[in-house]
């Protein structure tokens, strides 16, 4: 029996973007948020695990816990679990923290270290709260890398398992409900067509299914190299690199053409090696999960221009 079609990515209200280090997770998250806002949505993007790099993707000044508009209709913030705790105490529990921050910070550090999951729950809690109460059309999360995301998304269950009563318990119940609803929440995994990123993504898909209630809404395959030649063209290329044609070509261009041909050879081999990993990914991921392909960008500079280019490619992949 075919499963129900997945809710389209841009129709979800809370999208976590994860990926192995170096695969372009932040690039994809910032492009997704830009794409959604360019389609008229009011969007919040939150950097959870960041080192303050997100702002650079929009050429904006550094982001903070309090969101700031970085593009029309697009707001950015940086997660700060301590600020989140204070906000939570104040808004949800009506316990205002007055006076110096020192003792709170200390107590918080202690609690976070002592009770695993506290930090995670404050992060997820803040994000769920933004979705529920602050009227965003979409909240995009530049989430922790693949190795850490499951712990983050599973935190409400973990805390539910440990904490039987108390205010935290009532809070985790509604968070779990929101995270478990595939029409609202989804996880987007970013990888590149290379050995480790593909393996990690496949492992992630399994763990997300078994250990969390969040649905995998899609896999972005980033940095896909262009196909240079068809079969016949490759035969022509091979013939060109033979000593006879190469010597003629050298004479015609009045220079050494070998390095130029060598570079094409490298590009072809790179693409071929990557193709095997791509096949592995296709075979290993549930066919109902859409794969979105983004081209290798030959600029690699991070900035608004790159973000916009990626957003356009992503829009095309999503059929806009």
């Amino acid at each position, binding site marked *: 029996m075919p499963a129900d079609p997945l809710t389209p990515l841009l129709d979800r209200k809370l999208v976590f973007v994860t990926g192995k280090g170096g695969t372009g997770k932040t690039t994809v998250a910032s492009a997704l948020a830009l794409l959604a806002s360019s389609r008229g949505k009011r969007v919040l993007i939150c950097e959870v695990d960041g080192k303050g790099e997100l702002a650079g993707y929009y050429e904006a000044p550094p982001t903070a816990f309090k969101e700031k508009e970085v593009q029309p209709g697009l707001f950015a913030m940086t997660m700060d679990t301590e600020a989140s705790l204070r906000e939570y105490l104040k808004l949800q529990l009506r316990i205002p923290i007055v006076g110096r921050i020192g003792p709170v910070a200390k107590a918080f550090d202690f609690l976070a270290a002592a009770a695993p999951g506290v930090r995670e729950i404050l992060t997820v809690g803040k994000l769920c709260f933004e979705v529920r109460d602050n009227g965003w059309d979409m909240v995009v999360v530049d989430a922790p890398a693949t190795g850490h995301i499951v712990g983050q998304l599973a935190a409400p269950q973990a805390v539910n398992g440990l904490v039987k009563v108390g205010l935290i318990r009532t809070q985790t119940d509604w968070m779990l409900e929101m995270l478990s609803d595939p029409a609202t929440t989804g996880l987007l995994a970013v990888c590149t067509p290379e050995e480790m990123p593909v393996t990690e993504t496949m492992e992630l898909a399994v763990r997300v299914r078994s250990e969390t209630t969040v649905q995998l809404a899609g896999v972005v395959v980033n940095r896909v190299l262009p196909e240079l030649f068809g079969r016949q063209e490759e035969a*022509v290329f091979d013939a060109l690199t033979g000593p006879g044609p190469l010597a003629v070509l050298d004479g015609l261009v009045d220079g050494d053409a070998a390095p130029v041909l060598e570079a094409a050879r490298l590009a072809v081999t790179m693409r071929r090696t990557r193709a095997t990993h791509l096949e592995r990914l296709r075979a290993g991921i549930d066919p109902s999960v859409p794969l979105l392909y983004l081209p290798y960008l030959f600029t690699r500079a991070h900035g608004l221009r790159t973000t916009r280019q990626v957003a356009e490619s992503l829009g095309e992949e999503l059929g806009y």
Partner: protein
Amino acid sequence: MAVRSPRKGPTDADAPAAPTMDSLLATKEIVVACGPGGVGKTTTAAASALMAAVNHGSKVLVLTVDPAKRLANALGLDGIGNAEHRVPASAFAAAGLKPRGELWAAMLDTKESWDSLIRHHAPDSQTRDEILANPLYQNISGRFIQSHDYIAMERLYEIHLSAEYDLIVVDTPPTRNALDFLDAPDRMADFFSSRLLRWLIVPYRSKLVNVATRPFYQISDRILGTEFMSDIAEFFILFQTMYDGFVERSKAVGRLLSDRRTTFVVVSTLEATPLREAEFFAEQLTARKLHLGAIVLNKVLPDYLQGRAGTKVAEAMKDRAEDLAAELAPVVGAGAPALGDPEQIARVLTEVADSYLNFQVVALREMEERATLAVAPDVLATVPFFDTDIYDLSGLLRLGEQIWA
């Protein structure tokens, strides 16, 4: 205290005085490979250990955290878990190698390492069993990633104490922040000697809450529930029996990292984001008086992409594709007439030229990044882009030779 190695490695009349990867691996006892995620840290650690085992008559261990399946296969690590395991002679023979030393490998299993640490430090078997069964302990040791940082360094220390190896090369876990594992021993020590910890435990033992701590408990109880708070307290009361051992131990781990026999190899690519992170990390190492032995730059595009002569050729190929194709057609089609279609040749020439110019943009950017590198390690190694994956010892050796060179 063992003999301290000279900082610059051995020198004699025949050898160059400048330090190399070779001299670094020949003189240090611990090499810590670190850097941002996705740059080939694990492979670099394995390749370095292999080179040392092959070329120096030493017994070398590589401690990996999360190797790719085929790398694990190459090292014979599949299903080995936490145990140290000698890479079999057959694997070397298959690669046509006769190592002068021995290569051992082990994988880090966080949960297993935590359990063995508890077994080691628990004062009696009852406490041990109670801790191992405690739900909070299981969460700390299994689910929450921060504990990886500490346990990796702890395991390194344990292996070091076994005095079994001439050289230990350790791969570091993917951390949120490349510095986390450096701070982990200190953090662990701070945590267990924390005054707040005692605050927390005392009232649950004595039922005596003083004026200063009451608000803390009231808030905690309200948020987390009394039951959970007493779970936490029980966990720490159990753990307290091991405080001294833990604090002592984590301090010793910290000392080992700053020992002169230990060096750090920072691994990166020349992409802007990881490189900035690697650079920051290298600066921090120096600021902490830790030894920055080398920076290894992986996946660097070949030099021939940078040539301006190549640019001219590529531009000519692109601009005059049709003319060139007309002249080339008879030569290309000489053996196989089907290949002599000028239109097709022109398309191939254009594709080839475009591809070169595209990759050149990236190669030039990489060169610029490298030129602006603000830190100066003893050794700066550049490893070219490998067009295939590494799946056996000979592949690993090929990589090692590049690092070595």
